[in-house]
């Protein structure tokens, strides 16, 4: 476990008193913890050990839609140059709860992980020139300006490709690079609405609520973006050719909705808000316990309902002529739910959990973040990474997902201070002199 500087150190999630569940998880944690220790990285030669090492990514996006794709690549070894405006930086630095560091909110600290910050004003000619030099030395470019913006700055695809024919470029915008709405400003919240997800969140006929978290669409579009980049890199290896990945946030949201398009297309079914339930199965929802907490129960198959009926002490409910078949449960949705509401409502959450787990019924607590921090499984899996930074204290952030057995990702640093790597990159990568860099700084180009 690392406990000392350089600047950041990571320790395994959770108090030492919680033992790992088995040896496998202990091994994985050990690997992660070592990898998270900067001193250790040098000695094991991270350069060769991580799958994305050797890859240089320029992330000139703002907020999360696109930049999160860079975060993932960075977790697995890519060098991420976060190119930001010299004065303002990424607005994500001011978005959400402030930390003690004046240029960083908590969301920035977490999602700016592993990046290096390089300031560059793309509204100035010299900024654009330097940017093209960076592009020439990079593999991937990630941007999320409104379509047409980069072109206005003289940084359209033709120019970029000329600077680097193998460039892979991820472009994320609210509506994509084409189509009638391409110039509209789009954020995840708008995309959730436009793609039909928000319409489904809430009780039938009542107020549509935010579907979970506000930036969900940003994460989704970044996940598709990361996949696109990885596929495009394969193609580049085979052919030398770069290409563009064009993602509208709304598309990434829309892609998640199982049969909704097919069912409307074929049968004219318009799915409506389903409250805490689902059209596919009963019981399948959220239920309140006697201690005013909530559990989720999901009986997707008849087998699971049979188990659940036994757990409720009413095995007869699962008979073929009662609620055994899903079709009958769906037809008698309210009755079945009433039975479940009554049973769950008579017990504490701990008791419901215990009985359902013993009976192998799919159940889970509807966790608040406070519940999550106490949870033994989150701790055992290392889902809460704890990083210390001077002046900030300990910052707890979500750990790396996905978990790879031979080449696990790692968090080397939190979201960087604005411009922390400008000098290093301009000096070492682009070969500018100290004097030149000073001049650029005076002109606020960097």
């Amino acid at each position, binding site marked *: 476990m690392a406990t000392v500087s350089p600047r950041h150190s990571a320790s395994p999630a959770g108090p030492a008193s919680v033992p790992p569940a088995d040896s496998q998880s202990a091994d994985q944690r050990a690997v992660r913890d070592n990898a998270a220790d900067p001193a250790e990285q040098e000695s094991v030669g991270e350069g060769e050990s991580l799958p994305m090492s050797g890859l240089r990514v320029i992330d000139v996006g703002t907020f999360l839609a696109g930049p999160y794709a860079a975060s993932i690549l960075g977790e697995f070894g890519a060098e991420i140059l976060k190119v930001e405006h010299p004065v303002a930086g990424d607005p994500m630095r001011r*978005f959400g709860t402030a930390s003690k560091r004046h240029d960083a909110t908590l969301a920035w600290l*977490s999602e700016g992980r592993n990046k290096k910050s390089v300031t560059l004003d793309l509204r100035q000619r010299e900024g654009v020139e330097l940017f093209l030099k960076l592009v020439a030395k990079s593999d991937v470019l990630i941007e999320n300006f409104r379509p047409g913006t980069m072109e206005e700055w003289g940084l359209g695809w033709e120019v970029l490709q000329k600077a680097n024919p193998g460039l892979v470029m991820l472009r994320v915008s609210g509506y994509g690079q084409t189509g009638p709405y391409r110039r509209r400003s789009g954020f995840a919240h708008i995309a959730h609405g436009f793609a039909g997800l928000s319409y489904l969140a809430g009780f039938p006929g009542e*107020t549509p609520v935010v579907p979970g*978290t506000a930036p969900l669409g940003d994460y989704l579009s970044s*996940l598709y973006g990361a996949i696109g980049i990885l596929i495009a890199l394969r193609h580049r290896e085979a052919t030398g050719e770069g290409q*563009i990945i064009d993602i509208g946030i709304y598309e990434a949201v829309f892609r998640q909705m199982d049969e909704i398009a097919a069912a409307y297309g074929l049968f004219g079914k318009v799915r409506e808000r389903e409250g805490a339930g689902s059209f*596919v199965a009963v019981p399948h929802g959220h239920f309140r316990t006697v201690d005013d907490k909530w559990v*989720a129960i999901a009986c997707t198959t008849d087998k699971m309902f049979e188990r659940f009926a036994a757990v409720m002490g009413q095995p007869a409910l699962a008979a073929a002529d009662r609620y055994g078949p899903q079709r009958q449960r769906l037809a008698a949705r309210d009755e079945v739910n009433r039975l479940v509401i009554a049973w769950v409502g008579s017990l504490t959450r701990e008791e419901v959990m215990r009985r359902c787990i013993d009976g192998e019924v799919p159940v889970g607590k509807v966790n*608040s*973040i406070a519940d999550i921090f106490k949870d033994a499984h989150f701790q055992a899996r290392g889902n809460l990474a704890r990083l210390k930074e001077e002046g900030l204290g300990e910052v707890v952030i979500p750990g790396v997902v996905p978990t790879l057995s031979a080449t696990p990702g790692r968090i080397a640093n939190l979201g960087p201070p604005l411009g922390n790597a400008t000098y290093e990159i301009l000096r070492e990568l682009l070969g500018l002199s100290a004097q030149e860099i000073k001049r650029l700084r005076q002109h606020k180009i960097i």
Partner: protein
Amino acid sequence: MSTSDSDEACLPLAGIRVIDAATVIAAPYSASILGEFGADVLKVENPKGGDPMRHFGTATRRKDTLAWLSEARNKRSVTLDLHLPEGVDLFKQLIAKADVLCENFRPGTLEKWGLGWDVLHEINPGLIMLRVTGYGQSGPYRDRPGFARVAHAVGGIAFLSGMPRGTPVTPGSTTLGDYLTGLYGCIGILMALRHRQRTGQGQYIDAALYESVFRCTDELAPAYGMFGQVRERHGPTHNDFACPHGHFPTKDDGKWVAISCVTDKLFERLAIAMGRPELAAPHVYGDQKTRLENRHDVNEIVRDWCGSLHREELLNRCFAAGAPAGPLNSIADIFGDRQFHSRRNLLAIDEPDIGETVIVPSVLPRLSKTPGRIKHLGPRLGEHTEEVLGDLLGLGADEIAALRAKRVI
């Protein structure tokens, strides 16, 4: 329209063979994406009924449901009973000829059949194995059954969905966590393939549904860790970071809009769209901090304005001013939308044995040089068993008939 013209051999994942022995959406969705970009995906299913996904949701004339037709796109179905020794043996032969295995059995199940990682790794040292379960391969809950519904709850997003202090609701779609995990799984596979190219070394990816959900919760964890802030249900507005930021009803009954002013600049544009630019003055509601402190007043102003206009008129004003707004579309709205049409987000595919056209979401992500494609919808159970056992494993017609008689396939 159903298939693009790109030469199959030129697709970026051509030559990669994926065995998808998983069920429902999560791990299979990783395979679906790989298949869209040219990988050969063999869907290994139990001969008795196959993947339960075939029964999930609305049935078609072919019995297989719409979700199956859409999400099993491009796959070849091979039946194989892994409960039987001969099934296990054939599976091992397939593994020897594959690059990737996707599975989502409960931890220990494959091991019980003699198909644990050690065995598979020995058969094929370069094998990449995606393992998806509700809780992952380690930790105290590893043996619990897990579904996306439960993962949304455990991962913290169900708690946030719903009216403040009201019943937590489904966060839009019950399958969200499955898709999220499929995406992370796919990323894991592609990175592992990259590592294999350099080293020859295979590995496994240990994915948990709840982890994919939890990973998408912005500052939820650090805000609790540092300040003990417990985020509660948002309702229709999410004003922890920005205001106005929420859903507002328009003059048209049941038609809502989303408005999202994450920066001051965007609020200024909204104020212009509202015909009240003075609201964005520094001493009024010009900065985010002031708006957040006065969120009730700001929301009320926006709500009143939205309620006074038809949705279309309201949105036109917002778009003209560059203010961030959009409709809360139903699927019916989506089918009529110009942007969805222009971007070809909906693909109409003719399936002869269904007798009708099936409309499915098209391939994501969109690549300029090597776009993915949908060759065909979800296959019939066992549609490709003979072709795969014959061509790939070199079994003769007699052997295949014998296996069928013994219900191994």
